[in-house]
């Protein structure tokens, strides 16, 4: 594998702030043309990882490279555009002047008019930067990130403060960037954004990468599918043990004793075999539904499992 194929690489990267381990043993390679979503609860290390990637901070251990070299070199070469959550804007200037600055300092800067149009800020171009709403500020930050011909675009929670229609427009713009062959890495709180935009999803939790795959793979990892049905006592006898014996079971809930009707919810990694198993066991599931988990539920499941594992480890450690 030549380094020319790597857009970004983390190799065994760790970073602590005081006693808090923000990033722990992160190993990760981004490839050209990928659109990658970075998910994780607050404090999971998303922003820290992006800071390391952009060379704003130095790792305690391991190495971070962009296009095979130091992050700073890639930024100076104009290969990276970034929009940070904490990225402030210059005050006392007009939007047009600020974006012009970004175009001018980029080694392969775009034309001002094109950037204003792409970011959807033509109508606010003559406003003062300090007089913008939160969503407008976000779009100006985005304009700064795409003011030149970058190969990688890094966005930290880009749609925070945008309303729904602006958000949709924003992602349309972002997809156009990805279609033009750029690599896009974005951190987000909105799981539906990751689900609909990203072709690769990374889940960070407590500074560790706990899942890396397509949205479908992440869902599969969490116990991908959901089966629900009702069992009526008029259709025959039933014992919970029959359900427990089904393959690939992640969770099982049986409720609703009223009038001889029991509602059953199953989460399973092998829904197909489970449905076949129900009939083999002589059961007659009514109102049978088989659906996929949302990414959000998958995310909660994965991070919850991790918490449970960590909890075990922590009690073991404190017992010593």
């Amino acid at each position: 594998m030549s380094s020319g194929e790597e857009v970004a690489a983390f190799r065994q990267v760790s970073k602590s702030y005081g006693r808090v381990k923000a990033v722990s043993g992160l190993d990760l390679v981004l490839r050209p043309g990928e659109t990658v979503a970075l998910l994780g609860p607050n404090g999971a290390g998303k922003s820290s990882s992006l800071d390391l990637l952009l060379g704003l901070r130095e790792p305690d251990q391991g190495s971070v490279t962009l296009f095979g070299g130091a992050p700073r070199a890639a930024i100076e070469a104009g290969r990276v555009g970034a929009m940070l959550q904490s990225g402030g804007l210059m005050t006392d200037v007009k939007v047009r002047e600020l974006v012009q600055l970004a175009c001018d300092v980029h080694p392969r800067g775009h034309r001002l008019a094109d950037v204003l149009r792409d970011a959807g800020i033509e109508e606010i171009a003559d406003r003062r930067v300090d007089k913008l709403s939160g969503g407008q500020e976000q779009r100006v930050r985005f304009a700064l990130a795409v003011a030149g011909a970058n190969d990688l675009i890094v966005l930290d929670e880009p749609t925070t403060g945008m309303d729904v229609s602006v958000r949709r427009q924003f992602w349309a713009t972002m997809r156009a960037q990805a279609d033009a062959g750029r690599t896009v890495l974005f951190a987000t709180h909105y799981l539906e954004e990751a689900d609909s935009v990203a072709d690769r999803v990374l889940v960070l939790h407590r500074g560790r990468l706990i899942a890396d795959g397509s949205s479908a793979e992440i869902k599969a990892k969490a116990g991908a599918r959901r089966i629900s049905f009702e069992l009526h006592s008029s259709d025959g006898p039933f014992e919970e043990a029959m359900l427990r014996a089904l393959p690939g079971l992640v969770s099982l809930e049986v409720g609703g004793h009223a009038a001889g009707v029991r509602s059953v919810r199953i989460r399973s990694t092998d829904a197909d075999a489970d449905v076949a198993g129900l009939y083999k066991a002589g059961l007659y599931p009514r109102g049978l539904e088989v659906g996929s988990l949302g990414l959000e539920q998958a995310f909660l499941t994965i991070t919850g499992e991790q918490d449970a594992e960590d909890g075990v480890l922590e009690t073991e450690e404190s017992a010593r």
Partner: protein
Amino acid sequence: MITLIRLEILRSLRNRRYLFFTILYPALMYFFFVSVYKGGSVAGGVSAKSYFMVSMATFGAVGAVLTGSAQRISLERKSGWVRQLRLTALPGRAYTLAKIASCAATTLPAIVVVFALGAVEGVRLGAGQWLGLVAVLWLGSFVFAALGVALGYAAEPSAVQPIVMIVYMLMAAFGGTWYPISGSMRNFARFNPVYLYNQLAGFIHPGNTLDAAAAAGLAGFLLVFVAAAAFLYRRDTKQA
């Protein structure tokens, strides 16, 4: 880089508060002092009109560079604009250089406006002396620009604002800005950069040449402030 410097200058000139404190305020203070002394002379026989013309020019210039650099840098570190700029192809020092350049550009009006008022009030100097005075005071303001950069990287905006005001007012009070320094106070004033800055203008009086000791003292302060600014800047870069 040139775009950045141009924009920094433009935004300083657009900021009304900044213009008030650096140009209007010293100009008003100048009229105030001239009317208090009623065209007489201050201790040492120098006319009040020319004494306060220099001291209000330095007052405005120091104020311009301290607020223009220290407060701006501190605020922009907090807001994240400094981080955002570090994600551009601009070299890291460009930001600081642009700040100093815009300070230098905005001290000129602060100096020139007070001088113009002085001329209107009847201060008479040769053309060479006028130009020399502008040049000396302008160059001297870089010492305070370096101090401003150091302060801007030293602390948070909420702390920098009072620090700047206290440093500025103490240096002015004991530096001959509002009244001439005489007697034993001079022993302390020699370690005050504002006093040295005011002394630089002494060459306009008959029989005086440029105060070499004051110039050397200011050069020393410049070195100290630049070293402090460079140290604090590097520390900040590692943290951000």
